[in-house]
């Protein structure tokens, strides 16, 4: 199927850090009151433990990002997104919730390199406080990247994952590659 290719078509760039298409990722949006115990229990039963506000749960198989008090983004393997969406919808049946497969609406970019430099690249484009003390592994931040909306988090030291809308995939990739141009290290973090 053609959805094995993302809107970034597998691009990658290496400068002060490596910026690359993270490939197809399954993404399911859940709108529900995340503080509601029934909702939490239903999601946990469907295999998605909810993180605390501003946080994420993360493993090799996927994760759950806290997007707002009533929005979570479930990440999974691309070919499991449809099943995941149905499973979540079934689990939440009876609760006031909206589940939608949005795997194609967004793209995921991975940044890898020295932790300080990964943070520097993002700090060139986002007003988020990127000090490791303020933005540790395990937190997610929705913010602005240049002129578009994005969310990012650090799965581990020296690695950042970034999500943005599909239509601006090329812009976001060009933006990050430009910020990561060789020789433009800031030396601040």
């Amino acid at each position, binding site marked *: 199927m053609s959805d094995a290719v993302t809107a970034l078509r597998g691009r990658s760039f290496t400068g002060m850090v490596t910026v690359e298409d993270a490939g197809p990722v399954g993404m399911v949006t859940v709108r529900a009151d995340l503080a509601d115990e029934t909702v939490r229990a239903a999601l946990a039963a469907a295999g998605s433990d909810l993180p605390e506000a501003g946080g994420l749960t993360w493993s090799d198989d996927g994760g759950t990002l806290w997007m707002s008090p009533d*929005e979570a983004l479930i990440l999974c393997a691309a070919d499991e997104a449809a099943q995941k969406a149905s499973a979540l919808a079934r689990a939440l049946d009876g609760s006031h919730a909206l589940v939608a497969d949005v795997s194609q609406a967004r793209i995921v970019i991975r940044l890898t390199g020295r932790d300080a430099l990964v943070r520097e690249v993002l700090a060139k484009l986002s007003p988020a406080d990127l000090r490791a003390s303020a933005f540790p592994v395990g937190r997610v931040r929705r913010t*602005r990247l240049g002129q578009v909306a994005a969310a990012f988090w650090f799965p581990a030291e020296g690695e950042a994952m970034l999500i943005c809308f599909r239509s601006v995939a090329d812009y976001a990739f060009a933006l990050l590659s430009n910020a990561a141009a060789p020789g433009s290290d800031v030396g601040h973090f």
Partner: protein
Amino acid sequence: MLTLTCPYCGIPCDETELAAGGEAHLKRFGPGASDAEFEGYMFHRENPKGVHFERWRHAYGCGKWFLAARHTVTMEVFGTYEAQSTEPPQEVRDRITARHPGWTWRDFA
């Protein structure tokens, strides 16, 4: 360049992550309202040199609307609170009173 803390996600937001939404605590007047009531709701706004209540949206973020109590001259922020409020929380009012005894804004004091 303002920094306002989103009461939903706790993030101190940069002004460029926010969208301003005008005056807070407006009461909606719909069909059945008099011309004067509708005019007041639709068009009349406070423009204080002093304490003010505003709506903001964490647009490049969690997407939530919140309210902010702010001084338009000193830029002091007395508090941000959820948009699902028909009046400012007492603690915010107390903070304003501590700085500006005797303040009023519309029907609030």
